[in-house]
């Protein structure tokens, strides 16, 4: 394993230390080493929190920042943060107007958030949650509660953070973040597995010459394994899954298109995939109002990419357009 490491069991502490040291203009510590908070104190806002396992940078700490999330709970590599970390993130984010916890649908995160919300309640803190389940490849529409959250989480944070920045109350922030999730569909294609530093060999297998359609960010099984395709074919395949899902997308609809790299795929190739996906979507009459291309929610050294389509309207557009400033998303 050719990686930059000291003790693989200590990587989360060390990289968190580096993150805090590098970005004092954006983030700072909390009492809990596994929770960080943004330096922007807006006393009149609902707090926005997320969290998840490590190894997905910029997610999740990169989405801590102005008009994004106010605090982040940090887990071990590919492992949910503790309930305590979520609780401490809630406390750091709370300004007396309640906390919106926006997170991804994984069983560990579900359990720990649930416990943290219960603990918060005992301490008199109101926390409401939105669970992102944008991965259209991870279960059929009838079983949406089984769907994973993938790069659509970025759109959820953006909308949720912007909603809080408008001064909206907790229920309104939750409604808008939930709306962002409901209007968002994603699908990824995995080209190589990733290697957990503490394990030292690939976590699962994707045979060279094949690709795994719908693979999850920890190697969760996808829809199918098929022969490696061209970028144009991959884009068409992904767009077809999204267009064939239960979110009505019709000619004339305005959308945002986000192409997310899984970590080790060269940026050149993400732009190439973006171009192909955009062409497919425009052929179907959709209008791309806003574009994001880059590494947002990665799986360490996995190769592959996902696309995320969000159907926009007059309520979501200004929220998506609002400036924000986090390490993983800067917009003006």
């Amino acid at each position, binding site marked *: 394993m050719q990686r930059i490491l000291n003790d693989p069991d200590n990587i989360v502490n060390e990289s968190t230390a580096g993150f805090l040291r590098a970005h004092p203009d954006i983030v700072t510590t909390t009492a809990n080493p596994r929770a960080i908070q943004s330096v922007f104190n807006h006393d009149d806002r609902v707090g926005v929190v997320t969290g998840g396992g490590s190894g997905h940078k910029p997610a999740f700490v990169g989405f801590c920042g102005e008009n994004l999330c106010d605090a982040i709970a940090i887990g071990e590599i590919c492992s*949910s943060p503790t*309930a305590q970390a979520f609780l401490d993130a809630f406390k750091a984010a709370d300004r007396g107007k309640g906390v919106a916890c926006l997170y991804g649908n994984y069983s560990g995160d579900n359990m720990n958030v649930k416990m943290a919300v219960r603990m918060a309640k005992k301490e008199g803190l109101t926390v409401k949650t939105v669970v992102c389940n944008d991965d259209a490849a991870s279960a059929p529409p009838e079983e949406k509660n089984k769907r994973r959250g993938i790069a659509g989480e970025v759109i959820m944070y953006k909308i949720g953070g912007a909603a809080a920045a408008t001064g909206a109350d907790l229920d309104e922030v939750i409604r808008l973040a939930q709306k962002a999730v409901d209007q968002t569909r994603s699908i990824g294609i995995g080209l190589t597995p990733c290697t957990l530093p503490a394990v030292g060999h690939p976590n699962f297998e994707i045979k060279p010459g094949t690709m795994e359609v719908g693979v999850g960010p920890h190697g969760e099984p996808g829809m199918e394994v098929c022969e490696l395709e061209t970028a144009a074919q991959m884009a068409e395949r992904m767009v077809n899954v999204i267009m064939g899902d239960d979110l009505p997308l019709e000619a004339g609809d305005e959308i945002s298109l986000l192409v997310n790299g899984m970590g080790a795929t060269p940026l050149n190739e993400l732009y190439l995939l973006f171009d192909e996906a955009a062409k497919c979507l425009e052929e179907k009459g959709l209008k791309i109002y806003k574009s994001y291309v880059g590494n947002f929610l990665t799986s360490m050294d996995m190769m592959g990419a996902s696309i995320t389509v969000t159907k926009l309207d007059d309520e979501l557009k200004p929220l998506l357009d609002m400036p924000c400033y986090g390490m993983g998303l800067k917009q003006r």
Partner: protein
Amino acid sequence: MKFKNANGRPILLKMVEAVHENKQYLGDIDGLIGDGDHGMNMNKGFVTYGERLGDDETTFTEGLEDLGMVLLNEIGGSMGPIYGTIFMEMADAAMDEEDITLEKFGEMLQAGLDGLYGIVDARPGDKTIVDTLVPALETIQAASAEGKDFVTALDEMKDAAEKGMLSTKDMVAKYGRASRLGERSLGVQDAGSTSCCIILKAMADGMKSVME
């Protein structure tokens, strides 16, 4: 037969020791169809609890409560809430008791399982911890109903837990990382069911050592 709740220390220590001794083994099993960190995760939580306990005495229920809190607050992932909930619910079910009887222990295990079912969707046959915990619980309940003595019941529970653990070899994983493998997860024992078996056996041995 029963044991004093106040005599919790040796029981908890046995559990800590057992997990610590099996760190490598649990990691290896998890490595076959998971990511190989189960031993590390469990060891981290249990050893932290052991260090916090230090030379202190503890009741069995307090010990379970504290251990559960450590797991919940220190190891995260799925194991934190899963074992945290099991132990904390077990503790809750007998917190004010002076003595732990076989019947009471059955109630504790039932509470642990109920708590677990409140947070996971896995049920028997899904190749998880549940496949060890359920037969163990059923054996204790049956022994209690049949009026068997506590020690016999514990020995039977150890066998049942082991059988439950081994039965996961013939199952296809539906939850956790191993679910990725589908049919290919057949033939390999589940890591969580293994740690659960190791913990239940150590708990039983600890309880036997303070049995009155």
